[in-house]
């Protein structure tokens, strides 16, 4: 039937096709519409026509039982002692096996003696006593050394026909094998030499052929496993530098690792020495104990406890004199803790223990020094105050105002009640405006001002003070309100449309209202009669006028810009 030539729509891989069974379609149509075209099999073209393949393909295409391609069979070996050859038993691990041992690593000695070696060895061992006999294992080891040495020293032995003399070999043997094999090795060397020459100075064991000479090798089907040409990468300076850096880093790291290993090694060596010492001490003690029991001496058992414990005890006693009692308390449990362990514990720990104790003491000493320094500074400032008594220091922005003076003088902690009320308690302030606050009783640690003061000082709790300003005005200065104020809904609302955020706020403090003019006026020295209260507070000299920033009674965030 001539095929109707219908122009077919193109069939792409995305074309959706209906799936039908053969019985769902008219058989005549099915037959006529089948495309008889060559199907790519992927088999070499001249093999596609092979008789058995075609028979098998035809059988799968038709409905017949599939035909098989004949092949030389494999059969169970009958004349081999499988169990003897494969004697190891395998136990399936519970988890998936993960292994990276290579063949060389699990096959032991790389030389396997063959029947020729066996003949020689049996002849050699003949008539020798059992102790003098050379075992097969040792024989293989010796030959392995010979072969390895040949490969390392004369890689081109097969070409230039050099044979390594026994002198070189014996050095290697000495290095790698027990010395008793050296004498036998000389005999084996003779045998090895014979075999080597018989094999054309190649390896005695039959090996694969690798590439030697490119022209010959390409045609030789025995030459296998050639190296692939390495893909060339573009060379750039950056890449070179990168590689150099990487190599340097690698080298450095390796060097470090090496040192680490060397140090670890020396540590372990010392540990061992220490162990031995401790053991000998123990032995000596044991002897002493035995002697004591024998002689009936009682008491003085201190000797049996490790010496180190006592030593650390006395040290602590000495140092303890310098320490505050509560510190000593914490120190005492330590020797008690260590005492029972000393006899048994590892030397490694014993170095650590006293070191640890020393460290603690050192820090305490430093603290003590610090205390002394602080005390001295306090004394000095007191002295300064005494000197300045009755004087008014009018230095503008003193570099380092003496403690107890300055803007924060006279602040008192505000209790919650008053904080909300915004009214200072009148009872105290009515008597003296600048009453010494509780904070002043224990002066804050003194600090020098080096550069600009910190923007926000840590203040424990909100404080306020009341004072009389110029012209008898009543001022209330407060501080430490920052957090409370920041959270204030109204305040944030006030800055809502301001681009500058909280960080910029200190800048605002310096804004128009506290201009230099204000500041300047505030620092103009006043005649003494302007200070009516001055006469009353004799022991507390006034600081120069508080900065305008402090004086703002209802500033949103009131941190004095002046130094502490």
């Amino acid at each position, binding site marked *: 039937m001539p095929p109707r030539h219908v122009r077919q729509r193109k069939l792409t891989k995305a074309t959706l096709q209906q799936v039908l069974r053969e019985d769902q379609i008219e058989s005549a149509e099915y037959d006529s519409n089948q495309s008889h075209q060559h199907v790519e099999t992927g088999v070499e073209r*001249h093999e596609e026509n092979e008789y058995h393949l075609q028979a098998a393909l035809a059988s799968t295409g038709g409905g017949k039982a599939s035909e098989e391609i004949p092949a030389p069979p494999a059969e169970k070996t009958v004349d081999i002692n499988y169990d003897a050859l494969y004697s190891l038993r395998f136990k399936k691990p519970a988890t*998936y096996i993960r292994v990276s041992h290579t*063949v060389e690593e699990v096959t032991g000695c790389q030389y396997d003696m063959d029947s020729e070696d066996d003949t020689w060895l049996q002849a050699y061992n003949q008539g020798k006593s059992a102790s003098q006999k050379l075992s097969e294992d040792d024989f293989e080891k010796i030959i392995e050394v010979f072969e390895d040495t040949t490969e390392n020293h004369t890689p081109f032995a097969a070409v230039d026909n050099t044979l390594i003399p026994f002198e070189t070999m014996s050095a290697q043997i000495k290095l790698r094998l027990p010395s008793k094999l050296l004498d036998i090795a000389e005999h084996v060397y003779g045998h090895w030499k014979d075999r080597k020459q018989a094999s054309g100075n190649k390896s005695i064991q039959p090996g694969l052929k690798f590439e030697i000479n490119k022209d010959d090798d390409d045609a030789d089907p025995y030459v296998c496993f050639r190296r692939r040409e390495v893909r060339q990468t573009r060379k750039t300076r950056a890449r070179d530098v990168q590689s150099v850096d990487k190599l340097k880093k690698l080298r450095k790291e390796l060097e470090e690792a090496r040192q680490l290993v060397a140090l670890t090694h020396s540590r372990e060596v010392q540990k061992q020495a220490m162990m031995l010492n401790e053991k000998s001490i123990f032995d000596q003690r044991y002897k002493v104990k035995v002697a004591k029991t024998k002689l009936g001496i009682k008491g003085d058992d201190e000797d049996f406890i490790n010496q180190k414990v006592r030593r650390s005890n006395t040290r602590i006693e000495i140092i303890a004199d310098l320490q505050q009692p509560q510190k000593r308390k914490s120190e005492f449990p330590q020797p008690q803790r260590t005492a029972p362990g000393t006899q048994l514990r590892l030397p490694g720990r014993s170095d650590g223990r006293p070191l640890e104790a020393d460290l603690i003491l050192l820090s305490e000493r430093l603290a003590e020094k610090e205390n002394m320094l602080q005390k001295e500074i306090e004394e000095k400032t007191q002295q300064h105050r005494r000197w300045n008594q009755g004087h008014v220091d009018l230095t503008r922005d003193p570099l380092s105002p003496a403690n107890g003076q300055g803007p924060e003088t006279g602040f008192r902690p505000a209790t919650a009640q008053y904080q909300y009320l915004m009214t200072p308690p009148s009872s105290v302030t009515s008597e003296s405006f600048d009453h010494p606050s509780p904070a002043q009783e224990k002066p804050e640690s003194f600090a020098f001002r080096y550069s600009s003061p910190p923007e926000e000082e840590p203040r424990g709790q909100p404080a306020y003070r009341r004072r009389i300003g110029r012209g008898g005005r009543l001022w209330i200065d407060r501080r430490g309100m920052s957090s409370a104020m920041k959270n204030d809904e109204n305040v944030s609302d006030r800055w809502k449309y301001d681009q500058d955020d909280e960080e910029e706020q200190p800048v605002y403090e310096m804004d128009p209202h506290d201009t230099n003019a204000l500041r300047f006026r505030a620092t103009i020295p006043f005649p003494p009669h302007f200070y009516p209260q001055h006469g009353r507070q004799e022991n507390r000299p006034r600081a120069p006028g508080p900065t305008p920033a402090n004086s703002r009674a209802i500033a949103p965030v009131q941190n004095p810009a002046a130094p502490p």
Partner: protein
Amino acid sequence: MAGKEPAVGSPAPKQKGKATIDTLKIGCLAMVMKEGRTRRAEVLSIKETKSGRQFYCNFDNFNKRLDEWVPAARIDFEQEVEWPNPELPKEAKKAAAPVAKKTTVTKKSQKRPAAKREASIISASADGETPKWSDSIESQKATPDAEGEDKNALKLELERDAATPIDEEDDAMDDDEAAIKAIKAKKELADPPQSRAEEIEKLRVGGSMTQNQADISRIRNISKVQFGNYTLYPWYFSPYPESFTQEDLMYICEFCLCYYGDLKAFTRHRHKCAMQHPPGNEIYRDDYVSFFEIDGRRQRTWCRNLCLLSRMFLDHKSTYHDVDPFLFYVMTTRDEKGCHLVGYFSKEKESADGFNVACILTLPQFQRKGYGRLLIQFSYELSKIEGKLGSPEKPLSDLGLLSYRQYWTENLIEILLDFNEREDKVSTEALASHLAMTPHDVESTLQALQMQIYHKGEHKIVLPMHLIKRHEMLKEKQKTKPKRMIDPARIQWKPPVFTAAQRTWGW
């Protein structure tokens, strides 16, 4: 070999004449008894044995694995023998360079006919271009051999024009290196290699599968192998140490795959060898089998040994290059001795052509037991995890083609029946992505099964009844005896990642 049957297509017709046992020489085409009848065979080698002269014969349209040593009694000297063509000058030139100098007598004898064989290959290629396999199926069915020649000859006459330019190009190639490239570009992978030069060129740039047409490698060099508890009869040449050719029996350690020509050495090795499973990470385990992943670079010795072993059963496997750029997925069965190698497939670490399998082999003692199917399924399961569509590297062997066809068919039929029941439409692409196959493989399978038809203006897929029946039969059988399948949930595997440095420095 395909093209030896018709002498029509070859440029120089072969001389025919009667031969005797003494005059029959290498390269002759003679009629030899095989499977109950005489078949044309090429004599590849001759040896003297105690029982007389023997000839190594390759039979027409028979796979090389069926080549054998034949005593003179099986050769029909009544019929005429085709003598090898006299050496042409250009072929002499070709042969002179590559063939290495050999010392033994047998090899010397092989050296001379090299050129002639190439001549026959060239003629083969000329023929091989033309016949369509569907046509030749019929000719095979009816007349597997001689009778079919007429038909083919007719066709060949018609298509000779198409075939001859290739011969011309072949001539030019000897002089011009650039011509090689041009030919290569024109020809498909499946084409038989044209010359040694091109063959080697192909080896240098190609993947793991190729046909190494070297003369010696056409002849099986190892006759018998003792492997584990089995005796294997190798099918093809394998580049084991040359000295093993003289041994009657080669011993291979079942676990480390090391090879020995001497029983004493093998016994000594077994005494020391502690390997009990392939030296890699187990990535799959069920009640029957385990899969191990082995990196060719890290386990060079083992992987080389595996390649040598598999080369005995894979004609197209190349051992030209080292194993570094491949990963090997090895399937084993377990018993109290260890994990026994059943089969494996290798896979390029980075395949430019998107192949998910390079070589694939089930050892002969485990063939026809469904293990090949498991290997194929596993390779596709790995592709699914990678999220890629995969295809085996070409050329496939005859057995490889059958195994893959079977796997593809079974899986496609299963899905298509499902679509048919739901009365849903499907595209090749969807089928492909469902099975992690390339759309090309899906299409060629559908074509080979004659399932694609054009009907009422639409492309349709039709399931032939005999395939449906077979599928139902299989399903019925599986109820009583479940088929071994890979359970994807048991795969513990992540696609290995290689750094740029590893790729630059040859893995």
